[in-house]
């Protein structure tokens, strides 16, 4: 009578017994990237709000990311804590598979390798995000059995990168060539991720030899011809570009690794599969216009000014005050920047249109089913060009081809040899990847945020784009460790520059 078992589910002792358990644990490891409202739920939007592209349109207390655009980010900040906590949760989910899957009976080597390849990739990506945001972080490679008194000190960013590269190389070996179902990782995704890791790592660790490794890896992916830009010659550049973000043409030729989302019926009970990211960063809801954003992210006046009007990506990426909104060819009304139902939405500037549903498809209750791109082919091509340039200081022919592919798809002129500098490539990344949570990492790794923010003030005609005045590079290029993480792990010590922190 006293020996009762939970009727609703197994205990941990009953798990990792069959391959089915391993399969579920792998799904959970992917799920770690969209867990709740974390990471690719909403948190990544905070990384856009600390760029020269976006500010927060809502109140400072509306979510943990509310103060990020002002660089009022403290160790107590909940979004900062989310990043740290949810990345380690995701890592643990990968570690569970890495340690337990090989012990399961009756699992074939092929399928074991497949499972392990996926989670090694995921673990690498998660440590990559951790070190990009925090720098030196603790490295945990297996699940712990005893939580009491657990403590772990940080590894240097160099060691973290070594671990990331080791995991990705292993994933390259273990992953299959083609996915069993859409959304799964393949071996070339690991190669593409290595490109990013080498390129960013070269900047971060001042390890210039990695530029060449990035270049080589990128060429390996390009030469495989497994990926292509969406570029139908019968369509306009704008049409081609926006098709990448169409909800009905997901996992197309350009997608290398995307966070998969699915609209689960319009009720936000399972935000893990239907996310908030695209909603969070889009302008405020207006049903008539089929615009369904939360209105947290708005675009600076400066970004609009600096973006060449001849770039077709600009029109389909941004809503600008007075722009007509067409739905199925029918004009539904006008985008009004001055009428956003958000307290901090400024009359000048604009909103993000890129993730807008141009389809006549009623979204439900503020959930987007749009996948979010972690790496897409255009990103890889631009990284290739940048790595080529940085490897020896000159952009080679191959690198130029990659850069021009991206520009030509966008309907822009080719650059010619000898005219391209790094800033031009970074600007190309800014417009191509606008709103895709890439900008901050580019500003950060090249340490160019100060210059970017100076332009915000310069371009601001009505004196309200003063948010970034609070930015101090030596602090914010690497965020503080969350206070809760420090409290729970005695071996984690706050960075000196953050040791004294004002709120």
């Amino acid at each position, binding site marked *: 009578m006293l020996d009762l078992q939970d009727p609703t589910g197994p205990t941990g002792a009953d798990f990792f017994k069959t391959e089915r358990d391993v399969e579920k644990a792998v799904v959970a490891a992917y799920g770690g990237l969209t867990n709740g409202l974390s990471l690719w739920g909403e948190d990544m939007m905070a990384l856009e709000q600390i760029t020269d592209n976006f500010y927060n349109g809502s109140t400072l207390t509306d979510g943990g990311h509310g103060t990020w655009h002002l660089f009022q980010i403290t160790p107590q900040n909940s979004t900062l804590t989310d990043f740290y906590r949810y990345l380690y949760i995701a890592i643990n989910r990968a570690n569970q598979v890495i340690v337990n899957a090989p012990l399961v009976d009756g699992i074939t080597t092929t399928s074991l390798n497949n499972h392990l390849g996926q989670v090694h990739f995921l673990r690498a990506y998660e440590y990559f995000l951790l070190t990009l945001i925090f720098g030196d972080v603790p490295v945990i490679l297996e699940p712990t059995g005893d939580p009491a008194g657990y403590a772990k000190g940080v590894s240097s960013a160099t060691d973290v990168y070594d671990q990331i590269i080791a995991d990705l190389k292993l994933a390259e070996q273990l992953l299959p060539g083609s996915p069993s179902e859409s959304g799964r990782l393949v071996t070339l995704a690991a190669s593409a991720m290595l490109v990013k890791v080498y390129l960013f790592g070269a900047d971060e660790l001042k390890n210039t030899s990695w530029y060449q490794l990035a270049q080589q890896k990128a060429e390996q992916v390009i030469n495989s011809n497994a990926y292509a830009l969406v570029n139908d010659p019968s369509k306009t550049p704008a049409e081609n570009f926006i098709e990448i973000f169409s909800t009905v043409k997901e996992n197309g030729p350009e997608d290398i690794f995307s966070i998969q989302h699915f609209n689960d019926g319009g009720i936000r009970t399972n935000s893990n599969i239907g996310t908030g990211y695209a909603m969070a960063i889009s302008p405020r809801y207006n*049903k008539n216009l089929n615009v369904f954003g939360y209105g947290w992210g708005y675009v600076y006046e400066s970004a609009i000014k600096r973006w060449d009007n001849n770039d077709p990506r600009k029109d389909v990426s941004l809503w600008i005050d007075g722009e007509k909104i067409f739905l199925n060819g029918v004009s539904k009304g006008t985008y009004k920047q001055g009428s956003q139902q958000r307290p901090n939405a400024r009359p000048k500037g604009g909103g993000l249109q890129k993730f807008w549903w141009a389809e006549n498809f009623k979204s439900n209750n503020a959930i987007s089913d749009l996948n979010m791109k972690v790496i897409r082919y255009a990103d890889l091509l631009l990284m290739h060009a940048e790595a080529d340039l940085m490897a020896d200081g000159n952009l080679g022919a191959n690198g130029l081809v990659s850069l021009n592919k991206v520009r030509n798809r966008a309907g822009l002129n080719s650059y010619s040899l000898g005219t391209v500098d790094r800033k031009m490539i970074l600007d190309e990344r800014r417009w191509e990847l606008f709103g895709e949570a890439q900008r901050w990492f580019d500003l950060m790794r090249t340490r160019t945020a100060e210059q970017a923010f100076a332009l915000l003030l310069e371009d601001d005609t009505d004196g309200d784009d003063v948010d970034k005045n*609070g930015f101090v590079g030596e602090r914010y290029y690497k965020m503080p460790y969350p206070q809760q993480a420090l409290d729970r792990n005695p071996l984690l010590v706050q960075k000196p520059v953050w040791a004294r922190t004002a709120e």
Partner: protein
Amino acid sequence: MKKKQIYGVWYGHTLFKTLRIMRLTLGLLLVLVVQGWATKSYSQKTLLNLNMKNAQLLDILDAIEKQTDYYFLFNYEQIRSDKKFDGQATNKKIDETLDLILKGTDLTYTIKDRQIIISKEKLGLLQEAGSDLQQQKSISGKVNDSSGTSLPGVSVVVKGTTIGIITDVEGNYSLANIPTNATLQFSFVGMKTQEAQVAGKTTINITLAEEAIGIDEVVAVGYGTQKRRDVTGSVASVKGDVLNEIPAPSLEQSLSGRAAGVQVISGSGTPGSGATIRVRGVGTLNNNEPLYVIDGIILGNIAGGGQGDVSPLSLINPNDIESVDILKDASATAIYGARAGNGAVIITTKRGKGDKLNVSYDGYTAVNKLDQSRYGMMTGPEWAQVYAKAQDNSGNSDYTGQPFVNRIIAGENIPTYDWVGELMQNGKIQSHNLSVSGGNEESNYFTSVSYFKQDGIVNNSDLERFTLRFNSDHKIGSKFKFGNTMLISRSNNNKRGNTYGFDNTTDYLNRVLRVNVYKPIYDPTGYYAGVNYHDPDAEGLLDSENSHTIWAVNEMTEFDAVNRLWTSLYGDLEIIDGLVFHTMGSVDYNTTKYHNYRPSNKIEGNMGSPDEKTRLEIGESERQTWFIENTLTYTKKIKDHNFSALLGYQSQNSKFTSFYALDGSFENTDYWFFNRPHLKTEVKDAEGNIIMTLPALTVVAGNNEFEESFVSLFGRLNYDYKGKYLLTATVRRDASSKFGPDYRWGTFPAMSVGWRISEEEFMKGISWLHNMKLRVGYGISGSDNVPNYQFTSEVGSEGEFNYVFNEGEASGATIARLANNALRWEEIKMGNIGLDVSLFKGRIDIVADVFDKTTSDLFLPYAPAFEIGMESNPSGNLGEVKNKGFELGIHSVNMQRKITWTTDFSFSTVKNEIVSLPQNADRFSNVNISRVGEEIGALYGYVADGIFQNWDEVYSHAYQNQAVSSFDENSMPIYDKTKTDKSTSISFTAPGDFRYKDLNEDGIIDSENDRKIIGSSIPDFTWNLSNTLSYKGLSLSFYFQGVHGVDIYNSLRSLTESPNSGNSSAVLLNAWDGERPSNTIPRLLITDPNNNMRTSTRFLESGDYIRLKNVRIAYNLPSLMIKKVGMKQCQLYVTGTNLLTFTDYSGYDPEIGLRSGGDNETAGVDFGTYPNTRQYTLGVKITF
């Protein structure tokens, strides 16, 4: 101590019977000489018919009492005999009958009107005793109780003599030939004895007051009862009729102020909201609710009610309650072992009284008054001034809605709308209760039906309750007894302003407070105004508060229905003399249904309802619990040694299941069912061609299930020597399915001793000392108020573990919590020393207790390093909390003449301290902190130290967010003091901002070092003072409640005291401004670079208050008048609740209650609680 023997013999199960016998015994002891005559004579023509078969004398007397208006007075010891009677008496007069049945005994009888005294003495001889007294005259009068009902059977004795009489059925008495200087003593069991000087008067009318804590009172102690005089633990008792003086939907609110050491924290004004009861402080960081036991059915540690919760106890009809006994110290609670670590509340419902049919009706109606002006918001033009100023200060020369704001400032009269008034109303209550009781020698019953309806102060919120009770007791022979208890109850609750996906207890209220008053509520068609309906100049301005609260309150449904059935069956068998076997089986079955419905709407820009789809959610849960309880009680007296032993077994099993389904994609409002037509969503391209058909959006459903069991063995030994030295020893072994096999069983012993000092020979001479008892006790109890299955590891699945592959949902799972096989009971150790003193024949009763309570092995989640990456934290037995306290209760009868005046005073103080916590880490919750060495749920924040008046002050203070040029080698910011322009003041700390104290003086205001405990959510002490005055049929009672040494963090102010496009508090009119310095309200700014809204002493206020909690005036119609229409009693009463409050607190109501769920760790924060309001009640009580 003859009375005591009578208790022992008379099985002692039926309280009333026992009291009645006592009353008669007492009567006889006093009325040894009867000299006067009752004023009225009784017809001797009454004829009796008796059919006796194997009948005992007592049975016969009882039968006569039932058939006629005669009543007998006798000493039970004298008439007790085994003699059996057989035979018949037909149409016999009373004297003939008595002659017949007393023949052959040594008993004789005396008939005085309707009262018949049976005794061994010759009354005729005794009558002569007083005949030689001098200066004699006669006196008469009437005796009533405080409700104005006449009291028959009251002993009226001339003090110092044996002369006396007993009042007749009308309560009248008459005494002849008594000295003019005599003093009359009026006594009646259960009532305070009163005296009156004759002093030449010929008429003396007396109102007797009830003896609230009399030493002969019987109290429930768990698996039995004890007389108060024998109780050695700490037990507080409240009678049902005292409880009913405050008309409240739920009994725990009525307990407020009635028992020392029992803190009752009002929930909120939400219909059906209960209150949270804390017995002796806050012992744990988990469930602090006491154990509720109703008629032996253990309900568990149910949450009485945080804000917004409907109390489970509100399903009990307060009118059915006979008494409530609260076991406070461990020696008292130990009999419930591991279940009652937070104290136990034992509720006894009314039972039939085994005499004539008794029908009574009690009904009342009440209104709750809401005073809107107390919210202190701005008018429209005031808002416009403040908002324009704030925008200007923020450097926004061009902002959304500016033309509109300018028009208001220019004096244009633009209509405003009363959103608060539209949301709120005066509340109403009506309550009807009808009870019928009665029975005969073999069987008796109590049955009642009640209806209660409360309309809340938020529109469309209400609670409706129906109850039906049936209690009965039956005897078969003299050895076997059985009976039942049953409650069937149903409540229907329309919640508003409670929960709709968020903790919304307060949300509606603070939303309407903050909505812009220029925002129309309705559009010209009468539909709710959307963002597109407003003045064109105001476009984008008025809808910052983006939910249409009035729409939500009027159109959405959030409905709960609860059915509850409690029923039990018991049997008692007296195996041999003194040995009783008791068995009880009971079932507690309840179901809860909820129905949440949000229709589609066409309100533009309403973020809460972004499309025209309707959302429906239906869920239900069922909980069934059975108990089996078997006890053996043995009572034995050997000379002066009295023993009573209890041995018991109890087992319990509960099963819980729930299921819900929801769908948010109904196309229109007509669908209230899930079986709608199959829907598909078509995706079209720019030309309108269907390019994709998505499957029907599916219904989301879920369920939950758990089961829990207990097994308990317990024993108790009571011993006393001459009623002077008392001892109670208890031990209970409890097992719970919630713990791993190795830690499942816990042993909980307790012992207490009592010494009735007043019984000692050396104390006998002190005439004013009626009773004095010292009590000392110590015991260990436990608590398993934790979720089930916590000791195992857990696999998390679905929801956040899922992902998407192939555009479809893939099901994920992984280990999400580590195991803790060593999980065990929370342990409560408590010592108690108490003193009971009764002075001046019980006119003053004092009960004082000190206690020391330690709760250890707190069941708390361990917060391991984030790097472990677990979804949920394993729990362990970590942490310890101490509570020390003092309690004092005084009951005093101040006046007892024409006017009766009684006073009750209670005082409680508890000192709470956290001794340890997991990892000794602080536990934060928004504004609260629980920290080792401090109180649970302390308020925590920065210390606001006035406002910077100029740039010099800004740049000479520690770093908050001043403009910085760089950092020095110690990472200390270096100020850029040249920055004093407007642009700087928009982005950085500037004049007009709060200065915060640099507590550690390190030059930086940081959350780690410059926040501290700024307030306490636990009062230092509380007191209650109640007074009851009665004069003839009129009575007045009122009581004050005082709470001291407590703080409130007024979080509502932190929402309303900043300028924004919605409305704000009127205090902003006095905001800091270059020309108008303020030291309390910072400058007006849209953004807040200095974070002036941070949690600080800025919003901290004293929560002390003294409140006139209740005033009640009752009038009993004269019995002569109501008798004509067949009533025994008819009382009219008016009650006022929360009439007067003395407080410095600026919020609506200092009684803010606890947040949802009754969590003490988040106490003391006012988010704009659904307030307790003034209530005026008009009621009537009629007895037939």
